[in-house]
């Protein structure tokens, strides 16, 4: 298998300039241009877009997408399918529940991007970490957080994964190593960098070695985040210390209503990896098998201690930025272009064509997931809201930091509270 590190050095001189309203031409079958070294500077950056794949499988340079991925087993394919269907059906249910007044605030749905979450997170162990943004429901589900916990959290119930205290944009799960859920873009990337640092520290300082290698952290974020300082600062630090992290850019071309091209001087995000000394890889994020191949290699690299990778996934969200977004700026032909590349439809087609499963088996998976999501809603509905007494819990890990007693007054009358936190 050709390493994409080789490919990454010779990034194809294909411009990703996409003018705001124009639809992208559907990708022609691509030649091996992606592996050819750049001989002279590109004359102009404004070109029609080709969908560039990392094409890590050597010998398949011009093969159509389906045949290039014969290396997935039936079990793996069904696992991928089920995970993507779970993401889709769950998010569709969220939309329903929101409009029925069961879910509130800002809810950002992941429809269309499932291949990225599934392709990456299904390659992880339990000990590996995932850090996401506000578009985190599906990352949580892929990492193994039960659908009922996520749904209950969205309903604001005490049985939610964060006891109802986080909400849609703050999904956390310690047992599943989901480190958030962040509302401000970019602020999760340093946290992910810290988790990766801790993995390296555990190995080198604490001498705790996992059997496979270093625990890996994945940081998911969007195209808008790639113009933010924290992104660049963390690319630098991660490469400097060879941290076991993969930076996964979910480039869906839009940051609310701001087109990536209107916001970014050089829109080819994957190229920013080599500027910091790490491989930058561009992958078709609507194809879960391609994502999976890239993910595998990036994760293994990190696990071996070779450092970070920047992976840009070309993807698309079928819905608006959030349920409050009227989504008027995106052109219908752009939307239909990507709807035709629905990752779930594509995988279904592949599975059937490759005889990995039958249509009715896939249907039964969909039915199973329907039931799971229905059950999640029932569970969330039946769960209690948090009691008022929960308000002051969890503000401090050590509640002496509060200084305020349960009656809402300062604890100045209780001398016990000054006994301190440290035990000598």
């Amino acid at each position, binding site marked *: 298998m050709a390493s994409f590190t080789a490919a990454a050095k010779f990034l194809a001189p294909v411009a990703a300039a996409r003018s705001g309203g124009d639809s992208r031409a559907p990708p022609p079958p691509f030649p091996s241009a992606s592996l050819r070294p750049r001989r002279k500077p590109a004359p102009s950056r404004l070109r029609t877009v080709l969908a560039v794949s990392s094409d890590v499988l050597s010998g398949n340079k011009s093969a159509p997408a389906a045949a290039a991925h014969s290396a997935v087993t039936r079990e793996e394919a069904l696992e991928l399918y089920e995970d993507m269907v779970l993401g889709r059906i769950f998010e569709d249910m969220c939309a329903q529940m929101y409009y029925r007044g069961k879910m509130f605030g800002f809810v950002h749905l992941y429809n269309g991007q499932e291949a990225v979450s599934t392709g990456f997170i299904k390659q992880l162990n339990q000990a590996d970490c995932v850090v996401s943004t506000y578009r985190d429901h599906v990352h949580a589900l892929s990492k193994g957080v039960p659908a009922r916990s996520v749904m209950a959290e969205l309903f604001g119930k005490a049985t939610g994964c964060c006891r109802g205290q986080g909400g849609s944009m703050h999904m956390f799960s310690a047992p599943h190593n989901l*480190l958030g859920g962040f509302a401000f873009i970019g602020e999760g990337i*340093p946290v992910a960098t810290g988790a990766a640092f801790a993995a390296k520290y555990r190995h080198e300082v604490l001498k705790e070695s996992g059997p496979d290698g270093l625990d890996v952290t994945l940081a998911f974020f969007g195209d808008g985040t790639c113009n933010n300082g924290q992104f660049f*600062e963390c690319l630098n*630090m991660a490469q400097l210390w060879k941290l076991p992290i993969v930076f996964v850019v979910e480039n869906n071309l839009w940051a609310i209503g701001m087109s990536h091209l209107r916001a970014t001087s050089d829109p080819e995000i994957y190229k920013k990896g080599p500027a910091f000394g790490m491989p930058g890889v561009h992958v078709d994020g609507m194809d879960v098998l391609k994502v999976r191949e890239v993910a595998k290699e990036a994760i293994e690299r990190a696990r071996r201690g070779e450092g970070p990778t920047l992976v840009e996934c070309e993807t698309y969200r079928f819905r608006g930025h959030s349920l409050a977004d009227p989504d008027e700026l995106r052109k219908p032909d752009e939307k239909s272009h990507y709807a035709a590349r629905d990752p779930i439809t594509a995988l279904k087609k592949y599975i059937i064509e490759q005889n990995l499963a039958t249509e009715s088996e896939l249907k039964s998976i969909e039915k199973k997931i329907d039931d799971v999501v229905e059950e999640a809603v029932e569970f969330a509905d039946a769960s209690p809201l948090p009691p008022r007494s929960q308000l002051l819990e969890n503000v401090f890990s050590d509640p002496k*930091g509060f*200084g305020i007693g349960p009656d809402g007054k300062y604890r*100045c009358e209780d001398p016990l509270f000054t006994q301190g936190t*440290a035990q000598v």
Partner: protein
Amino acid sequence: MAAASSLHATAAPVAAAAAGSRSVSAARSVRVAGSGAARAGGRMVARAATKADSPASAASSKSDGHEVLLFEALREALIEEMKVDPTVCVFGEDVGHYGGSYKVTKGLADMFGDLRVLDTPIAENSFTGMGVGAAMKGLRPVIEGMNMGFLLLAYNQISNNCGMLHYTSGGQFKIPVVIRGPGGVGRQLGAEHSQRLESYFQSIPGLQMVACSTPYNAKGLMKAAIRSENPVVLFEHVLLYNLKEKIPDEEYVLCLEEAEMVRPGEHVTILTYSRMRYHVMQAAKTLVNKGYDPEVIDIRSLKPFDLHTIGNSIKKTHRVLIVEECMRTGGIGASLRSAIIDNFWDYLDAPIMCLSSQDVPTPYAAPLEDATVVQPAQIVAAVEQICQ
């Protein structure tokens, strides 16, 4: 174990609090016993309120202790904690090979290695966030801002992630970081290097704040902050790093939420912290000569306030003067004033006075800079006014 400190000379250690009793009552008994010695000697005796089970005996200290400068005391605390707990690590600019801009981490990289004493690039927001992520995964980072003011760049991470993640995760992740660095008005360092971030950070829910002021409390608070499961901001002061004091040889840890009785008195409660403690004590000399008996409390814990110690003092003196280095608007004094009014209104015989820095960016010129912060003469005048 009690210790003495002053800006200009060291004094002999005073007998320690009785072990086994609650810290507050222990402090009381020590205060009563020691106050005579303090006044008779004419020297300022600072006494730290100590934990009940700290290794102290009623009779005498086990050894003489050793003299350190404040930055060395912080360093000792770091070294002790890093030796005992391998998850404690330090992040910051120039903390490693350079030894720290104020030498707090001098030699630590040689002792503990480049990963445990991490020289970061100049990216405060990101390395603070890195500390948060590392803390969530079991480490205990001590994050240094080379100057406290630089941590304004890390405000995103400090407010959103340090302060909030324990809550928004429903208690699943704890963030036991220590964020520390020198702040306050120095000697003509210019406006941006003379900031007081305690007022900016105080509203952040989930964050604890302490300010050290003597080598003794610096070491004890640093150790307590490292051991605390909460995110703690430890405010040091640029001008106090070279204070010299004799501190105990035995290990001790102070209580993060406790205030320090610096000078017991009867006429007025003066609440202060960090460098202003020394201006207050200087004013106290003048006040004593004029026949006043001020009670000086170094509040140390900026969030939460130790309203227990403060309240007991107010119930005795009925008059309060707050002396702080924050700006008047929205400072620690402003919050303290309202907390006192809420809780101790009935005990007040006079309006609370609060002396704060001027609401100006700290000027470079020396006379203007002096006029920005509270000077001892103003403190004397304020006490005279309150005690009329």
